[in-house]
């Protein structure tokens, strides 16, 4: 019987997940199994996707869930369809909010990524000799998405630990998760605080931070007055680094879609084909990439 493994992701349009899929495909080619890629933007689609995998005779699947609280449902659905399950990126939790430990997981905690962003910002501030009290921080937020909250809160905790005052951190809520929405929201923050000349920005991903950086350019704040650090490190960020002149977007915390995609697929294959159970928890680290070293960082992470 052929080996068939599902790979379900919550936002198939996002480059990140495209990359995860790409690397999982690589594993599939190497090991000669079929990889079924399904996008499931919400809980209902996810449940259907699992049924669908069951119907086409898959043996297991890897999932990045649209919501971690779907945990018990996913576990039950998988069991009902007799499918092995692993999670990637986001870890399932049970009704009481505790991680479901029996499901193998590979990922990185949202809070940790956020902290990495915060640290990168603080380091750059030091390098530029900025004092915390003269700097405003733009929190490009999308609070509807729990991961997004965890990330920005992670960044804020580091900023605060380094002397940032709460009243210097300004919320710029995005109406949608695209750059234009972030741009519009950040513009308001900048205009409201025209007296502040030095800014830092962070958010859910590269697109959000790019919005804030574009906003600063729009109101005439030059690159040396803005420190934006994104998350993801895909093309949006790289385009920025490739620009002839440096912009306020100084870096991005890259997480490796290679490990997340390739290794999880491989592990799942070993599990269903050879009965080799994967490790219950593998945490990967994010790496900060900047204008001058992004190619190197990506190479180290095995992307490109």
């Amino acid at each position: 019987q052929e080996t068939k493994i599902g790979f379900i992701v919550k936002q198939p349009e996002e480059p990140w997940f495209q990359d995860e899929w790409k690397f999982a495909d690589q594993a599939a080619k190497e090991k000669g199994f079929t990889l079924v890629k399904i996008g499931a933007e919400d809980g209902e689609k996810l449940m259907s996707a699992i049924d669908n995998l069951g119907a086409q005779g898959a043996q297991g699947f890897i999932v990045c869930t649209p919501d971690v609280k779907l945990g018990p449902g996913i576990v039950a659905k998988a069991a009902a369809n007799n499918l092995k399950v692993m999670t990637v990126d986001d870890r399932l939790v049970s009704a009481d909010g505790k991680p479901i430990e029996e499901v193998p997981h590979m990922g990185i905690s949202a809070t940790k990524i956020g902290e990495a962003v915060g640290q990168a910002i603080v380091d750059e501030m030091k390098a530029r000799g900025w004092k915390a009290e003269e700097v405003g921080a733009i929190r490009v937020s999308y609070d509807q998405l729990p991961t997004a909250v965890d990330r920005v809160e992670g960044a804020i905790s580091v900023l605060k630990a380094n002397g940032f005052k709460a009243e210097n951190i300004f919320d710029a809520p995005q109406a949608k998760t695209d750059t234009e929405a972030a741009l519009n929201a950040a513009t308001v923050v900048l205009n409201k605080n025209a007296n502040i000349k030095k800014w830092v920005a962070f958010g859910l991903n590269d697109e959000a931070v790019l919005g804030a950086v574009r906003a600063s350019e729009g109101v005439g704040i030059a690159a040396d007055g803005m420190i934006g650090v994104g998350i993801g490190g895909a093309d949006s960020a790289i385009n920025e680094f490739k620009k002839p002149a440096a912009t306020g977007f100084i870096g991005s915390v890259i997480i490796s879609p290679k490990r997340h995609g390739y290794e999880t697929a491989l592990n799942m294959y070993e599990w269903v084909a050879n009965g080799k159970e994967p490790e219950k928890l593998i945490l990967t680290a994010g790496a900060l990439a900047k204008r001058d070293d992004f190619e190197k960082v990506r190479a180290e992470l095995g992307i490109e």
Partner: protein
Amino acid sequence: MTNSFKKILLGDQGLVVIFVLAFALVSVFVPNFLTERNMLGLLQSVVTVGIVACTMMFCLAARDFDLSVGSIVAFAGMVAVMASNATGSIMVGILAALLCGGAVGLINGVVIAKFRINALITTLATMQIVRGLALIASDGRAVGINDPNFYQLALSKLFGIPSPIWVLAILFVVFGFVLNRTVFGKNTLAIGGNPEASRLAGVNVDWTRIWIFTLQGMVCAIAGILLASRITSGQPNAAIGLELSVISACVLGGVSLAGGRAAIAGVIVGVMIMGIAENVMNLLNIPAFYQYIVRGVILLLAVLLDNLRSSALGRR
């Protein structure tokens, strides 16, 4: 083509025929499609859209519009989970959800019928307000279900078929009956055909419209409860964009946006076509980006075929 076959194909139920043909085709050519498991999975995947389409059909038939359904589904699901968590009683949770869904629908209806505010704007507004309420109530995070019995709403089976599918089937039958065989249904269609003439013919137009929206809210609540049970949590972000899927399923099924025309058979077919498209695309492992294109093409093809069919009927 023999004449009697032509008659069936060109008749009122033509879309159904096209659908049956397409279904047969897919069954033959798509591996794993016509298996019991896949059929159950397919049916379960259309439960939410199907349930909400029942009342959306009334809404559109009366020349109205409801964009708030997705938010109500999410909100009612949240309410069901939170209320049953708080009281320890699933029944209370269900009642609370029905009540809240109905209340939102009632507000929609009253604002639209009595204050004569455009339905698009009104339901766009409640769509936002209700989504906001769901987010505020849960602080933007999913709420887990405490009592595992709640899962049984969606997991339990009767004659091997999961209960949500039964609920869907029952609602199709009930609303099909209501549309064709009750005063309420006929009044709905009349209002959509000519609201002023209906009013002058003694139809209680305002009352009918208010009821349609209230029912819509309650039916959304049913969908929300089942969804929460199925995904084992109340999610404030659930069912985003549902309104568009439901409205297109209805329109695909021949419900006129200009009001006055609706049939439950069409709506069922519309819902099923959309569900089968998704199902088959995943079975065939079509890459995500190409799924967009296939989805669009299927939509166009379905209406185009139906159009060719009915223009062959000589009427336009």
